[in-house]
């Protein structure tokens, strides 16, 4: 799959994605991060695993719940956290928020706060890559709720019709806003919807990073060969609710408990995998965890220490 160093890096990234959210949650309570923040605790395998097979010049469109995508694509934690705090040192100078983080250098273009709002844009990337005769790929993350948007169907039809260089990666985390999937989806498996567009659709265990990597690799290879898009549905679970503004009460505790056991939790599972495969000792896994936590702590401090943007930038950059 990957060499041992990269396999370890992916573990570290999963922990960074999770711990940065817990760190941000603390800062949110302290008023240093504002507005609604959408956490992806429990969904680290999808973002980190899918991005692991991409290059910097492969472009990703994200969602409102993109922290694991950003970390997975190799974005700098300091600049991510600074952006979440609205600081001048953030990826977008503090203009974006956690929802709209972008890094052209790393091929993260980018976060999107409108459900399914970036899928058409992602297909536009894939179309442009195809027009250029390039084997670059655009991967678009969307959630289960997004597959009920008109844009999902319009964009998939065109991507399939023109065989654009795209991968559509659905993180099916069981809830759209506060509504459970069986109350908003007409199908049990979203991958079934691929049939309507004549493209491959697969359902995988989204809490198993190995399954995520394998499925994404196959889809990316297909797109690089010019054979068109693939729909991947990764079943996972949104542990912390819709956002920091979520009052909860609709996700049964038994359900949360069942998804957060060591056998289901994506980080615990991958840690065990690394040990079982002899890639790491248990102590080394702990050390990776500690390194990730240290990076998160440093990023939070970097964000806190960074200046806010100067008021003079308010009216700058409206037009190119």
């Amino acid at each position: 799959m990957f060499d041992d160093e990269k396999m370890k890096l992916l573990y570290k990234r999963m922990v960074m994605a999770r711990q940065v959210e817990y760190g941000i949650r603390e800062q949110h309570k302290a008023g240093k991060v504002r507005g609604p923040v959408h956490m992806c605790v429990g969904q680290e395998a999808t973002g980190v695993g899918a991005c692991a097979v991409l290059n910097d010049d492969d472009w990703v469109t994200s969602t409102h719940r993109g922290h694991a995508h950003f970390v997975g694509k190799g974005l700098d934690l300091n600049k991510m956290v600074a952006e979440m705090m609205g600081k001048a040192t953030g990826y977008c100078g503090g203009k974006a928020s956690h929802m709209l983080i972008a890094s052209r250098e790393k091929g993260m273009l980018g976060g999107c706060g409108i459900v399914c709002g970036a899928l058409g844009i992602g297909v536009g990337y894939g179309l442009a890559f195809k027009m250029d005769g390039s084997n670059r790929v655009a991967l678009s993350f969307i959630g289960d709720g997004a597959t009920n948007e008109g844009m999902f169907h319009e964009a998939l039809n065109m991507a399939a019709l023109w065989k654009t260089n795209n991968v559509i990666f659905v993180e099916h985390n069981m809830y759209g806003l506060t509504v459970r999937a069986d109350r908003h989806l007409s199908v049990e498996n979203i991958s079934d919807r691929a049939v309507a567009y004549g493209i491959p659709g697969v359902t995988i265990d989204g809490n198993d990073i190995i399954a995520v990597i394998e499925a994404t690799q196959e889809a990316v290879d297909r797109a690089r060969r010019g054979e068109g898009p693939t729909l991947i549905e990764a079943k996972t679970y949104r542990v912390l609710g819709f956002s920091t503004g979520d009052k909860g009460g609709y996700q049964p505790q038994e359900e949360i408990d069942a998804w957060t056991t060591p056998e289901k939790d994506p980080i615990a599972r991958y840690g065990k995998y690394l040990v079982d495969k002899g890639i790491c000792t248990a102590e080394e896994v702990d050390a990776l965890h500690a390194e990730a936590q240290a990076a998160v702590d440093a990023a939070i401090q970097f964000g806190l220490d960074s200046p806010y943007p100067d008021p003079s930038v308010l009216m700058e950059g409206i037009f190119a």
Partner: protein
Amino acid sequence: MSKKFYKDVLREALIEEMERDPNVFLLGEDIEVYGGAFRVTENLDKMFGPWRVMDTPISEGAQTGIAIGAAIAGKRPVLEMMYMDWIGLTIDQMVNQASLLHYVYDGQVTLPFVMRTQGGARASASAQHSKSLEAWFCHIPGIKVISPSTPYDAKGLLKAAIRDNNPVLFIEHKLLYGTRGEVPDEEYVLPIGKADVKREGTDCTVIATSAMVLEALEAAEALAEEGISVEVVDPRTLVPLDKETIRESVEKTNHVVIVHEAWKTGGFGGEIAATIAEEMFDSLDAPIVRLGAKDCPIPYSPALEPLTVPNKDDIIAAVKKTLE
């Protein structure tokens, strides 16, 4: 100079820009094999080949998203939105993506993307194919809005729009495609954000957009016979708005009539009137008069449709009213 049709010079502008820059490509409904509902893209598929002129499925939202994505990825898409009435299907992409990504991504992306569309009534196209919805987009920071009334302006401004690195809504008019006007034989590009005085005068300024410029010019001609000298100002681009040309005219005539085909309530004429009232009030000798469509859906019947949008006679009456 040669006398040419509005629709033909739009086509010339597309050809010239596509020849100049291989990143320019066209997408939209009916534009490839059929050549466009208004014949603007006729035979361009044969001239430029695959991937340069693309028929799309009837999926206006995703067309817009795809154009935005292609623009960010280095292309210069020109999307034809056949009727402006359908632009509601694109609004999320225009308002939540195209208009703001350059700003919120802090300059990491640019969006050289043109949406060509056409609006306007008086073609018996009924309530869902006759509207003028430019105000929706003028309201949104980050989108340029162009509305040319003559072949000369249409060609020069379409070329400018394609070369611009921002999202541009380029609004044509279904009744203007068949109009003719003088157009230079040599290449030219017009500046975005510069109004044009279509007729000079001293008594009253009529600020008119799109097809209403033609009505205003006819009104001015008729009023001249009565000894009233009307200056017709065509903003040509609504965003950015050339306030200076408007100011010069208002300072000269001290009287203002604003006319457009969009509904009067919430129409862009209100913005122009407010700007004049805020910034040029001392130059006014009389209240501003606004003319727009009556606030009703555009009806089909030939007995009703002509009553909805302003015409030459309405403009004549408005000028006389402000000069009273």
